[in-house]
């Protein structure tokens, strides 16, 4: 029992932190000018987009732990690139489907894919069915992956984003979102790789949830750090506001919620590849329930510590809040996770 990163993992974390730390916005205005391609290339060159590629014996190159470290780093940096959408969620779908060639393109960063989510952003789109659908985290992608029920079983399909989708004015300023209301004709969809088993889908969901949690932990950790730094510097009544016990306790509570989220997420990330799929999914839902439960509160506390300035558009605080609020919803909020956890725990007793 050693819930500690190995030396290799620590190195990877450092690399991811370095890239992410210089690739995100310092102020919201930077989002208009940032070189997103450079950030993507840097992630690709460091091999961070290839973590879920499979080696010869079918083992992922990097485990859920490595994925979570990179996701936490890109979350902390508010990096506006589709690491979750393309390198984790789409990549894992392709890898599970055995679509080596397509997976390889994503791993190299030469192609990108998003994922198609249902109208409440709660799950991967399962076609055919009624919309609306959202292409989520699709920056630079010309298609999003979804599932299609076929006579052969559940298949991964490419849904072209070029037609029938309209850009959506999403809350999250760091991810690209598009909406489709019109029905999708299954005949127009291109299937990729082999059908997925129920176990594949469970494993995929565990990984996707763990990655969203890790991104959220990053968003919260860096937000709390910024608030704490501000509280040390900002002087009111002749003293730094961080010397007021009320501000100290606000920061401490946000810190506790965030560190607890990190503990649950680390385990969920480890569980993805180490435990049975059902156990891994329970760990992931547990982490997501906690992360979703605290994400709004923590980022609101951060805005509150920043006082008036933290309520302005020019300040970075709301970019954290917006990403945290969206992460909260993606793949199911606290209530959705709790109901599924209850199904596991309370049924069969």
């Amino acid at each position, binding site marked *: 029992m050693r819930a500690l990163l190995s030396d290799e993992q620590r190195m990877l974390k450092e690399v991811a932190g370095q890239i992410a730390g210089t690739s995100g916005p310092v102020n919201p205005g930077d989002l208009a000018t940032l070189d997103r391609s450079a950030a993507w290339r840097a992630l690709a060159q460091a091999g961070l987009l290839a973590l879920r590629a499979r080696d010869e014996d079918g083992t992922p190159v990097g485990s859920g732990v490595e994925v979570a470290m990179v996701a936490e780093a890109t979350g902390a940096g508010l990096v506006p690139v589709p690491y979750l959408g393309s390198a984790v969620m789409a990549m894992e779908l392709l890898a599970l489907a055995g679509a080596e060639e397509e997976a390889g393109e994503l791993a190299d960063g030469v192609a990108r894919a998003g994922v198609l989510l249902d*109208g*409440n*952003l*709660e799950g991967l789109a399962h076609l055919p069915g009624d919309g609306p659908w*959202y292409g989520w985290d699709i920056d630079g992608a010309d298609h999003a992956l979804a599932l299609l029920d076929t006579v052969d079983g559940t298949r991964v399909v490419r849904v072209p984003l070029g037609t029938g989708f309209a850009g*959506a*004015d*999403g*809350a*999250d300023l760091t991810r690209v*979102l598009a*909406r489709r209301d019109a029905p999708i004709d299954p005949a127009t969809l291109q299937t990729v790789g082999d059908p997925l088993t129920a176990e594949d889908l469970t494993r995929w969901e565990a990984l996707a949830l763990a990655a969203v949690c890790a991104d959220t932990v990053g968003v919260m950790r860096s937000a709390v750090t910024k608030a704490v730094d501000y509280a040390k510097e900002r*002087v*009111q*009544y*002749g003293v730094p506001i961080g010397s*007021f016990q*009320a*501000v100290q306790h606000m920061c401490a509570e946000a810190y506790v919620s965030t560190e607890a989220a990190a503990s649950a997420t680390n385990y969920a990330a480890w569980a993805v590849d180490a435990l049975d799929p059902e156990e891994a999914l329970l760990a992931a839902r547990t982490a997501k329930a906690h992360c979703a439960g605290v994400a*709004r509160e923590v980022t*609101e506390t951060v*805005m*509150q510590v920043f*006082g*008036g*300035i933290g*309520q*302005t*558009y*020019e*300040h970075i*605080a*709301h970019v954290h*809040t917006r990403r945290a*609020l*969206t992460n909260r*919803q993606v793949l199911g*909020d606290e*209530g959705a996770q709790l109901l599924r956890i209850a199904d596991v725990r309370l049924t069969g007793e």
Partner: protein
Amino acid sequence: MDYRDTPEEAAFRATLRGWLTENIPAGWDKVEDPEAAARLRRSWHRTLYQAGYVGMSWPVEYGGRGLSATYDAILNEEAGNLNAPPLPSVGYLGRAIFTYGSEEQKQQFLPSLLSGEVQWCQGFSEPEAGSDLASLRTTAKLDGDHYVVNGQKMWTSGGQYADWCMLLARTDPEVPKHKGISCFLVSMSEPGVTVRPIVIASGEAETCEVFWDEVRVPVAQRLGEPGEGWRIAMTTVAYERGPADIGFIATYRRTLAKVERMAAERGLLDRPETRKQLARAYVRGEVLRLNCVEQLAARVSGQQPGPEGSVAKLLWADAEQSLQHLAMDILGADELTGVESGWLSSYFTSRPVSVYGGSAQIQKNIIARMLGLPR
């Protein structure tokens, strides 16, 4: 004890309701252009004034009707119920001017303030002086029969549409910080005044920064004595509007009704949890309303506004923010995907309620003082 209108109040309410129904400008809340919206607010002020609905509780000698604060509360309630444009806020400024102003100042400023001919803003906060207002850095240096003002103000609501500003500036840097502040009445069209809108997290321009660069203000436009600015500011803040005075409670009810409708549209009304959440939101609104009603009664019976106002401010922030959380939970993704974009904006607008007018922390400090807890 009686929570019902007296016959006089009931008659006033009935007349008012009829008048509002006739006079609320149709479609005012669909006006998106900020300039047009500002013109509309100005014209709404004049319309209200002509009907006698502005400054009702002011003394008759200053153009008011000498009515009790109950009538202002009824006005706010009915205007909120009937979704009128926001009511002009003249009370705190007027009170400062008729309490501290010279006879000339009263003559010059009060009538146009009441009538809405002249729109005012309030230049108090600064980037480095938020909750700690007394540490403000804007200076006003005496130069013959003028003061020369330099500095930067922040959170100056309505600054971009105001004609005049009630400004706090430091006139004496040598004395303790509360004692070196004076208050000025300054035209916003003076050379050296620059207004820049502040866009808040929702993406909307809600308030302003105002830069003061060598602005010359005649000595006659100082309000009160030199160094009396802090006292004037505190009087003003004490009369700053609570939730009851801005029709918040009526607005809250309308918003709750919208949230209830959204829950119904989404088929959530058969979920006991949602039913409870909606009922809890109703209870929060009622509790706030009833607390405000009691405070109003105390004020009408002659008590000065006191720290009990902090209770209502905390209940207000909690009610507003909880309602926005509830809306977000009911809307789910629709609030985050732009499908129901107004709600995300309302959510962000609800956040500073616990920062404006003294943060929730400061309200709790005030209550702790009132309870006699030591510093």
